[in-house]
């Protein structure tokens, strides 16, 4: 440092090191300052989103007897914070799917008359027993849940 200020003609008039170091240091301090201000603000604004993500981290949902669909019908429920669909097929079997269309996130509906699960937004169609794609733009099958039927109520859990 001291050579730079005393050596006069020997080195170029302004050695870049000192100024660069100072500027980089100031920049770092400014960034740290902005970070210290920005972090609480980010956390403050993100609180509800973080809370609902925590709520969404459940592994199973029990559906009481009185809410269960009749054979050939479906019922909608919340799995954590996401809409989900429990179908009671006419043959007596039970399936449950994440009811969010894999294309652009609309909630899908059960269409027993067409034997499919359908998304009206862009015409995505899924198999009503497996959730596989039947047609339309969806990139992936609907996520299926594990369904257990035990004395009256139904337990839906992550597969």
């Amino acid at each position, binding site marked *: 440092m001291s050579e730079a200020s005393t050596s006069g003609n020997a080195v170029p008039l302004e050695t870049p090191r000192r100024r660069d170091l100072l500027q980089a240091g100031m920049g770092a301090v400014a960034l740290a300052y902005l970070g210290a201000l920005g972090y609480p*603000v980010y956390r403050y604004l993100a609180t509800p989103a973080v809370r609902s993500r925590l709520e969404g981290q459940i592994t199973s949902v029990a559906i009481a007897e009185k809410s269960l669909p009749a054979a050939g019908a479906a019922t909608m429920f919340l799995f954590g914070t996401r809409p989900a669909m429990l179908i009671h097929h006419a043959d007596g079997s039970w399936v449950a799917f994440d009811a969010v269309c894999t294309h652009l996130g609309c909630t899908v509906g059960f269409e027993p008359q067409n034997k499919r699960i359908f998304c009206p937004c862009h015409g995505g169609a899924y198999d009503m027993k497996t959730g596989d794609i039947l047609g339309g733009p969806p990139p992936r099958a609907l996520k299926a849940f594990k369904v257990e039927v035990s004395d009256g109520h139904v337990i839906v859990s992550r597969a």
Partner: protein
Amino acid sequence: MATSSYPAPESPLRSVYRWADERLGLADLAAFAAHKRVPQHAHSFWYYWGGISLLFFVVQLLTGILLLVYYRPGKEAFESVRQITYDNDFGWLIRSAHSWSANLMVFALFVHLFSVLFMKAYRKPREFGWWSGLGLLSLVMLFGFSGYLLPMDQLAYFATKVGLQIPGMIPGISGMVEDLVRGGPQVGEATVQRFFALHVVILPLVFLPLLGFHLYLVQKHGNAVPPGEARKPAAERRTIPFFPNFLAQDLAMWLIALNVVTILATLFPWDLGKMADPLAPAPLGIHPEWYFMSQFQLLKVVGVIVPGFGGEIAGMGLFGAATLFLAAIPLIDPDSRFGRRAKIAAWGGALVMIGMIVLTVWGYAAL
């Protein structure tokens, strides 16, 4: 100019600047800033206080917007502030910063007001700067009064109740206060809802253009030089460039002010009392915020001398006279030609300032 002595090679940043300059005329702005100079003398320190007030206002604006994300006026007012303060991550910090910065802003404004007064910066041609400043201060007091109710805790409730009682004592006005300001015979949901509209929409809508006008006048007339400095021969008067010298000092002051807010907000977070309950007795030792304390004490003192209803009127009359005197100062002391008038302005201003300080201290001592 500073840029010409260090010819830099055309860096990407520089070519972006040139591109923008050709379209926006940034060089004119830079030339203007380079031209502008700020007087430098023994009392230059007081020049910072307008800028410090402005910084606190910006903090108010930003933290206010953040509070607006979760605040719900009306029935849920208290519950939403409780959630902000105790449930939300860092909500306590945002709310504390808003409260502390509000108090610091009022303090900085009083310092700014009296430093302008004693430096005689209200003299021709700066009268409108003085008047717009007084207008801004009045609006800030209304910001403070309306914002104080929004948490709807016991203190907020009674402070507003008492505060609205006072103008309600002026004959012929009490009905209007009830109809238009309180929104009913009691402070309640309707009051919070309209104070909220006042605090976040109406006041900012009036404040921002007036602030713009005030800052425009500051740019137009530049910093006033105190009389003692103005008497010196031109060769002895010193100035520094606004850009970058004064701005750098301003920035340093802002950084200090910001640190003061964050330190106070972190170490002394603002409390939330019990939910407002009209049936609960007012908390013991209840008193207005410090910036209303001198008015509160004035009413109390005059009330002892002039008992009953006349006391309130006399107290408000005195307060009104002091305000009117402040507003009239540029007319009383328009320029340096009148020695006696300058004395009236200075001593009158000192009387107002000392009166406010004495009444405030007295008010706290008498609690």
